[in-house]
Structures are given as C-alpha cells and as structure tokens.
C-alpha cells in the first residue's frame, strides 16, 4: 500500500515535470511565434491592431498572395533587401569554408604532436576572444580604407575568419583528440605519410566535429552585425545590417522589418535544427574541454 502511494506520488511528480518542461519551452518560443505571426500582417492591419481590436493572429488573410505581401515586397521591389541577402550568403559560406579548412590544419598538430609551446598557443587563442573588438576595428577600418578594401565582401570575410578561428580550433582539437592514436599509427606503419594519414584517417573519423565547426562558423558569420557595420557602407552591406538600420529608420513598416527578420532566421534555424546533435555536442566540447 505504501509502495503504491509512493509510486503514485512519483508519477504525479513526473507529470509535473513534464508540464514544467513543456511550459518552459512554450514560454521560450512565444516571442518568436509572435514575430512570425506579425510578419504576415499588412501595414493596414498592424495599425488597426490596437486595444480593444487587439489580435495576435493575422486575420486579413484573403489570398495567398496577400499573405506573403511583406515577403514578396522585400525580395522584389526592395532590391537592397535581396542584394544584402546575397552578400550575407556569400560572406557566410566563404567564411565557413576558410574557417573549417584553416581550423582543421591548425588543430591537427595541436592535437597530435608533442609540439613545444602547444599549450601557450592554445591559451593565446583563448585570449583572442577577450580582444576589444571595437578597438581593433578602428585600425582595421583605417587600413582597409587605405588598401581600397573598405566596403568589400573580402574585408568582412578576412576579419570574420580571424574572429571565428580561435574557437573553431578549440572545438576541432577536442574532436581530433577523440580519434584513437592507434589508428593513425597503423596508417603510418602501412606507409602513409602524415598528410595522407590526416586526410584518410583523421578527417573521416572526426567528420562530426568538422561538421559542427562548419555549422557554427556559418551561423556566427550570418548573424554578425558589428564587423560589417563598421567595415561596409553600401555595396557589401549584409542582411543583419540591413535589418538593424531598417528598424531604426523613420516611417518604416514594422511588418516588413519582421518579415526580413524571419527570412534571416530561416537558414540558421534550419541548420541548427538539422544538425541539432552535432551542434549541442560541439558547443559542449568547445566550451568544456577548451
């Protein structure tokens, strides 16, 4: 009898925990849901959206075309939106490739050799995250202007690469460390050279880590705001900068800004959900072991 009561109590607690977990998730998602729903409202509807006519769900849905009016407007006649979107895409993908390759190369010796000063190098990388971004952007701005790189995609890519590399190297090293030494030694005995061993043994085995680094690099460079804000003006403007300046300009239709915001979330949220396990593991490896 006592056991039954105990079990019932335990079950009750379990139900409570389920309730708590899902309500926490719901609360966390509410702001995002509101943004997505509002992005479908027309300007007219937004300005009617006032107590007591207040609503969260857009209710002027007549045709499908009207529903996506904000999005269509953003991607067609507002050319800047489209151009900046493409710039962001270019910058994020090129940066991702460079960061992944460089981090792979740098993490290999840090993980596999008894290099002198290995720990010092790793610590210098760690301190790089404390460098005052605002301060280094001034000399970079002056230098890039002198070199004619101001307001080019290349300038943003270079700075972003340096900015993301230290953390990427830490994560990559942590993943390389998980590949057993014996496999590589076997490959070396079989006559592989070191670069061959890296390509044929380590990289295939550390592929999840490489994937994690690549996804991080993409998400971070897609979201970056400060670096392009200072190093670009018009031609190389990126999507986040477009949104940030758009929302603070006068007479702006908030629903269009929200639509732009939702568009900018699509690639990164899709990536995050698609590579969920990899990302969570990568976050943990990078922060805990690093």
């Amino acid at each position, binding site marked *: 009898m006592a056991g039954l009561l105990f079990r019932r109590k335990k079950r009750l607690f379990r139900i409570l925990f389920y309730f708590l977990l899902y309500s926490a998730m719901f609360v966390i998602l509410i702001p995002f849901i509101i943004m997505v729903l509002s992005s479908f409202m027309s300007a007219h509807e937004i300005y009617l959206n006032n107590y007591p006519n207040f609503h969260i769900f857009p209710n002027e849905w007549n045709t499908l075309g009207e529903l996506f009016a904000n999005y269509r407007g953003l991607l067609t006649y507002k050319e800047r939106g489209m151009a900046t979107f493409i710039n962001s895409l270019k910058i994020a993908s090129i940066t991702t490739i460079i960061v992944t390759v460089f981090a792979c190369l740098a993490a290999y010796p840090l993980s596999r050799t008894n290099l002198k000063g290995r720990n010092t190098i790793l610590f210098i990388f760690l301190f790089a995250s404390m460098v005052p971004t605002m301060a280094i952007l001034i000399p970079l701005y002056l230098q890039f202007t002198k070199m004619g790189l101001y307001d080019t995609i290349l300038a943003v890519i270079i700075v972003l690469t340096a900015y993301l590399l230290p953390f990427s190297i830490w994560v990559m090293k942590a993943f390389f460390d998980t590949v057993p030494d014996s496999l590589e030694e076997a490959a070396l005995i079989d006559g592989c050279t070191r670069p061959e061993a890296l390509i044929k043994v380590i990289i295939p085995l550390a592929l999840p880590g490489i994937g994690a680094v690549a996804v991080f690099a993409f998400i971070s460079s897609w979201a970056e705001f400060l670096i392009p804000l200072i190093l670009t003006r018009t031609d190389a403007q990126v999507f986040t900068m477009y949104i940030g300046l758009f929302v603070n300009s006068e007479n702006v239709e908030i629903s269009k800004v929200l639509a732009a915001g939702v568009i900018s979330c699509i690639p990164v949220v899709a*990536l995050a959900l698609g590579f969920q396990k990899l990302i969570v593991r990568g976050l943990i490896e990078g922060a805990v072991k690093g």
Partner: protein
Amino acid sequence: MGGLYKSSHYYINSNKTKGVRKVKARKKKVRKLSLSRNIFAFNMMAPAILVIAGVMGFPTLYAFIMSFFKWSGKTPQFIGFENYLKMFTVTDIFHSIWITILFAIVVTILTIVFALFIALLLNMELKGTNLAIALLLIPWAIPPVVNGVMWKWILDARFGTFNNVLISLGILHNFRIWIKEPWPAFLIIVFATIYKMLPLAAFLLTASLKTIPKDLYEAAEVDGMSPLGRFFAITLPLIRPAMVIIFILLSVGTFKAFDIIFVITNGGPGNFTALLNYMSYMTTFRDMKFGLGAAIAFFISFLILIICIFYYRATYREVRYD
C-alpha cells in the same frame, strides 16, 4: 596527449636493453625527427596564425598605441595617459560603468537560475527531451539583431503584444512607451540578452549534470538525505567547473553587448542604456574620437580579464568524491 609523444617514448624504452649507445643514437634521431615535425606542425598552423595575428594581434597593438594619442587633427599627437584620464571626466562613463556591471550581474544571475532549472528538467530523461533541445536551439540561432527587432516589436507602445495584453487584462490603463523609460528600457535589454544566452548555458549545465555518477545520489538517498540536500551537497559542487565556464562566457558576452542595444534603445533614453561597449562605439564612430574610443575599449578588456581571473580563483576548486 599526442600520439607521437607516446609512441616515441615507447620506442626509447623498448630499446633500453640493447645498450646505452644505441639508445643515445635513437634519441638523437628522435630529436631530429621531432624538429622536422615541429616545422611541419608550424607549417600547418601558419595560415590560422597569420590570419589571427594579422587581424587581431597587429591591430590590437596599433589600437593600444593609438589610445595614447590625440587624433583630432591630421597628425596624431602623443598625449600619454590623457585619454584614459579624460575617459573618466568627459563622458558620463561612471554611469556607463555601473550600469554595465549591474547589467552583467543581473543577466548572469538570472541566466544561471533559468538555465539550471531547464537543465535539471532536461536531465530527467523525460520523453521528448530531444524535441525540447531542438526548440531551445531556436533562440540560440536567431541573429542578435533579429532578436532585438523581435523584442522591440513585442514591446512596441501602441501595437505591441505586451502593452495590449496588459491593457486587456486591466493591469495597465494606458499605453506606455517602455523604451523611453530608463529602467524598463534597461530591463528589456536584460531580457533580450538572457533570451539569447539561455540555451548555451542550459546545454552546458545539462552536459555537466550528465557526468555526475548516479551512485552518488543513491548513496545519499540510502543515507537519508532529502532531495534538496542532495542538490546542494552533490549537484551544485559537481557542476562548478561548468558554472565557471558559463560565468566567463556571460561576462565576456555582457561586457561586449552591442547589437541588441543598437537595435532596441540606441543607448537611450539619454545615455541610460549606453553600456560600455556601446559608449566606445559612439565615442569612436559618432564623435570620431579614435584615441578615446580605443581607451574605453581597452578598459572593457581589462575589466573582462579581471572578472575572469576572479571567477577562476573564486570558484575553480577541484571537487572529488572518491
């Protein structure tokens, strides 16, 4: 440790029986090999080190030197520590410093509390934990600028959800412009930042909770410890290393807060929510005072470094239950 390190040692040891001379020759060979290995290693690290040194190392040095110069005219003028002194007199930096510290404290405490709550729930092995993790990844993936836009819209005075819901519930009687009031504006920034930081902190704590051996809890249960007692005696001390990392991440994140302020409040009302990094931005790129801006930026890095050392010293004690 690297594989080569171990294997070369093994090599030397296995030859011990074959006489000292041979061992010495081997050692020489190994040293030669390891030298070529070092060159090989440096070659592989070269691209990364070059980019990092070029983009971060050199400009840091340049900016540091710059912080000792006055940049208003064409030729920079050496003024020693004047920028660092001027920093404390000209701009309303004291407000900025204390509001930044308050911001860091509030964000850190609330994030840790919420994250711990979520991590404990995620650690219970309930059904659908994976779904919860996936949902939790969404705020992490949203770009900070969009996060700012989102909160700005929700807290919009007339059309935002927040005000309208409060009025519908009868809590509020007329529309209030939250971002034009000092403390509400501050709280908006706090919540937007927590929203962004929470997932990472929760993941780290979940991972840390998973490493705690289950038999510790069983032993404590046998000893008649209450669940709350178990939490304070076992859980909290053992997740301390993860806590230190979260503290450091949050300190760096809060002291460098920029995007969200730029989008939501623009530092206003007045300079109330102009945290240090935003102040540095305004001094540098609006007022074009490069030297002064650099001085503030270095001051931020200095504060971050102090805080990290403090956390590390204060909380990083190894806990063992053998």
